[in-house]
């Protein structure tokens, strides 16, 4: 049976892992290579690295980080943050990433999804959607949650699938770093609207909320950050909990 994936996410700024609340108030939490090794040993199913430095230099450092990680850690690695062209994608993939995540650049230039899928295969292209709620609908945001694109998040997810995305990384801006639990309604709506895997992200505070994201939100995977970074839970603890709730984990 296919296992639900537990994916630690490392937000990296100039080579350091940071974590904020609602995409703001960043806190420095550690070295990405060391953290990747620890999470791998704990049983992480994949690792996601997002460059939030949003500059050429910061991205270059992240690529070096991924290169180092990929020599020691043999699980799938996703890289995102500031990738604007198929050439940027190629750099990330040749450095050792298996998938690339695109957010702002996909909204600004949707054909980038198709171009990436045609060159590297759909399985490589993760459409990252930063969604925020307004009056009962969710909108896709760009630039690290700063700008509302005005595009409906559910419509965008479906369009992304049609354009060739192989997976959706769904981040709730409202829930990010709050530990209040995932946005279940949003996750379920997106997951039921597309036929590609959906990773729920934003708001994890305890394993029960992950159970809800998987069972009620229909998420295929859950992304975790602060919960793991601050050592409140290990991946092993979480998997044990999920197993007791009859969720298949590795």
């Amino acid at each position, binding site marked *: *049976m*296919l*296992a*639900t*994936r537990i994916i630690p996410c490392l937000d990296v700024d100039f080579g350091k892992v940071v974590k904020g609340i609602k995409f703001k108030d960043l806190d420095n939490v550690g070295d990405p290579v060391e953290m990747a090794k620890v999470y*791998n040993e704990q049983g992480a*199913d994949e690792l996601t690295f997002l460059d939030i430095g949003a500059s050429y230099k910061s991205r270059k450092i992240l690529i070096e980080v991924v290169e180092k990680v*990929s*020599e*020691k850690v*043999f*699980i*799938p690695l996703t890289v995102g943050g500031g990738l604007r062209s198929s050439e940027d994608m190629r750099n990330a*993939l*040749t*450095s*050792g*990433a*298996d998938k690339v995540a695109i957010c702002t650049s996909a909204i600004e230039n949707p054909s980038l999804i198709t171009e990436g899928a045609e060159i*590297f*295969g*759909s*399985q*490589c292209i993760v459409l990252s959607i930063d969604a925020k709620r307004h009056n009962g609908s969710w909108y896709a945001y760009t630039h690290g949650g700063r700008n509302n694109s005005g595009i409906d998040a559910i419509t965008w997810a479906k369009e992304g699938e049609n354009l060739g995305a*192989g*997976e959706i990384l769904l981040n709730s801006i409202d829930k990010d770093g709050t530990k209040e639990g995932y946005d279940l309604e949003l996750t379920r709506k997106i997951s039921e609207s597309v*036929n*590609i*895997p959906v990773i729920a992200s934003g708001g994890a505070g305890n394993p029960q909320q992950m159970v809800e994201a998987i069972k009620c939100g229909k998420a*295929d*995977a859950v992304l975790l950050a602060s919960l793991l970074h601050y050592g409140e839970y290990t991946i092993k603890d979480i998997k044990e909990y999920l197993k007791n709730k009859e969720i298949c984990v*590795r």
Partner: protein
Amino acid sequence: MIAIIDYGAGNLRSVKKAFDHLERKTMIAIKAADLKKADRIVLPGVGAFGSAIKKLQETGFYEATQAWISEDRPFLGICLGMQMLFEESLETKDTKGFGAFKGKCPRFKKGKVPQMGWNQINITRESPLLKGIPNKSFFYFLHGYYVEVENKDIVTATTDYFITYTSMIEKGNVFGVQFHPEKSGEMGLKMLRNWVEIC
């Protein structure tokens, strides 16, 4: 020397890095002539069946690989690299695979496609590739099509994803795995080590 075939589509770095980690010498083969230096071949596969076959034909790898397999020389096909051993895929009609084995590749009809993530293997018979690997071990899968094998004698493991399908095959020195051993942690590395040590 292990040759990793590069037909310009996939991310081969992860396969190479896994063998580097096992301290095995590899070379990235970019043209058919490079295979002369090799005593074993890995064919990793990503992307679509049709475009992969087309690129293999353009680079001369198609015929070279077909000959290699027919001589029963050590070969490992990963993911699409396993599917291409068969006759055809419904992903791209009118494109012939290597045809080393009888069968075709239909698309999953249920569940999210592609299947993405860790799934278990059900070992159906003994294999040197599976030495030290327990039944129901998890490996990393990433595929929308699977192989429908005609001759079940070549099947060594199956996997369940709404249906039960073939996830490992072997005949002589030719092996195929639907999952990505290079991305399957310790068990995957163990399998690659087994492959290097058997034939």
